[in-house]
């Protein structure tokens, strides 16, 4: 038995600023110990506890795809003590990682189906991991049509601009980008995600929807998906809940008897319907 709270050391190789106000950055990390790197096997939708020693640690969804070899990416918004300390880091600095934790997106149940990804704002990180995973040349044919509906307040707040541009050029997926209010020069849609989802009306036939976003976006997107014919067990949601330990011990991220850190963070809408309304 080993100490489950002991992180592994990782080096920050690259820092990418994701938005205009520069409070969201993607950190590209490599484990110091190649053995640890080799054994760090994760699936899209899982998270890890990211440490800045002296400030603490916090759970962050893994934004890279398991197909990305040799590095991990975490997209982090500067919002509290730990994330501010991380934002002050430079390339070459060393931080701590433990994980991967959580169930992740149920890839096996998604194979052979049409996939609809619905994301809002900063919550797009593990959906990006999922999209990159599906779009990888070794995986693409295991999934049918891919539709990505992604919205943010304004164009500057859309994450992963390089990916979005690349996806826009590919013919094997349909990317619909939207912003809340009209901005000069914007070529995508204008409107909130649930509205654009309704307008785009992706078919629910043989399809699975994966959603992550702010609570209000989720609240209004679920009825749209239901109206489009998605059954509750084909709507997947990645939940947010305050966590500390990440391994089901510290007792704070439960919804009823389920822990978001270990039983989630991905739940089907059907599972959520059976759980207390406390998330």
């Amino acid at each position, binding site marked *: *038995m*080993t*100490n*489950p*709270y*002991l*992180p592994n*050391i990782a080096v920050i190789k690259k820092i990418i600023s994701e938005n205009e106000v520069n409070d969201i950055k993607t950190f590209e990390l490599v484990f*110091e110990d190649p053995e640890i790197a080799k054994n760090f096997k994760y699936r899209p939708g899982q998270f890890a506890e990211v*440490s800045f*020693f*002296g*400030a*603490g*640690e*916090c759970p962050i969804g893994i934004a890279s795809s398991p197909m990305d070899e040799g590095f991990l990416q975490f997209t982090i*918004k500067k*919002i*509290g003590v730990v*994330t501010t300390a991380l934002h002050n880091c430079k390339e070459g600095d*060393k931080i*701590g990682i433990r994980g991967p934790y959580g169930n992740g997106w149920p890839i096996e149940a998604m194979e052979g189906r049409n996939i609809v990804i619905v994301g809002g704002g900063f919550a797009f990180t593990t959906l990006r991991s999922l999209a990159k995973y599906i779009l990888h040349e070794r995986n693409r044919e295991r999934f049918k049509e891919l539709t990505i509906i992604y919205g943010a307040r304004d164009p500057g707040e859309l994450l992963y601009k390089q990916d979005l541009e690349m996806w826009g050029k590919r013919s094997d997926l349909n990317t619909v980008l939207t912003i809340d209010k009209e901005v000069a020069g914007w070529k995508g849609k204008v409107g909130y995600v649930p509205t654009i989802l309704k307008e785009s009306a992706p078919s629910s036939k043989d399809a699975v929807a994966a959603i992550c976003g*702010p*609570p209000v976006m989720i609240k209004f997107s679920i009825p749209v998906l239901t109206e489009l014919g998605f059954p509750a067990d084909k709507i997947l949601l990645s939940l*947010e*809940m*305050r966590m*500390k*330990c990440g*391994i*089901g*011990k*510290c*007792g*704070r*991220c*439960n*919804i*009823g*008897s389920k822990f978001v850190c*270990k039983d989630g963070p991905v739940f089907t809408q059907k599972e959520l319907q059976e759980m*207390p*309304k*406390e*998330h």
Partner: protein
Amino acid sequence: MKAKIMDKNELQDFVDELTKDYKVFAPVKMNRIFRLKEISKGKEACLGYQNTRQPPKEIFFPQTEILFTYKMDKEGVELEDIPLPNEKRVLFGIRPCDARALVFLDRFFSSGDYKDISYLEKREKTTIIGLACNSPLSTCFCTSLGGSPFGKEGMDLLLEDINEKYLIEILSEQGAKLVEHIPWLKDAENADFERAKKISEEAESTIKLKIAVEGLRKKFDSMFDAPLWDQIYQKCIGCGVCTYLCPTCWCFDILDEGTPTCGRRVRIWDTCQFPLFTLEASGLNPRPSGKERMRQRVMHKFNYFPKDFGELVCVGCGRCVQACPVNLDIREIIKAIMNT
């Protein structure tokens, strides 16, 4: 049933024998309260209490505990794991309700993919010697929840006060090994058992309040949105003492203490009764008021935990009833739920 017997005036010698081979934790009188502390001599132990203020969880899961230490310089980061205890330990003189609580904590900390090694190692190295309750308090309700003043669950030995003597029941191999160390202990006789049985029955009969908890877990299944929660939390001031003193509560926080060059990561007890416990970085709080927080505490004990582990996770020690500054009584809550 195997048992030993000793005179009451031999108790100090008994504990002295233990301190030779074990690190011994026992109740110690501190001003007006009793706390479990490490002792080096039998005379420090004091059994004249009804129960210790803090439950024994603090021996295995201290209120603050270092998880690891770190050092950082230009070369990099170095983490140092905390050494696990390697000495044999005895926890002496805990009440049957508290010993039962440890059984729940054992099950929780050893469950799932990640074992809480710090708790489990200390637990594994510890022999538990319980002390039966001859005179339960008015706040005690162990008999409603499957325990009893002379209950034996979770212990290796049980001391039973039979007037001028202690009957020492041997409940496990570990317990048997421990009494082997003390050759002067005499074998118990039938008359001792009979007297212990009588005292145990008397003790049990003094707990007048018996709450019917049959079907309580199921009952809670439909209680999440019950109007009852709107009322019962009203007088709660959210101090959290009910959870800090609860022998089966284990929630904790993790934080760093130190400078950019060296420091440590610690865990400290936390409570679901505090608003910050669930406040998310976005500003959203899924349990925004005392109502949701009290519901969490009660539902966890009587519905959520039982769903995963099969048993109600309250042992009826009554600490939360005694310590509550506004006289909230969990027994009244259970009764109210059972009557809905």
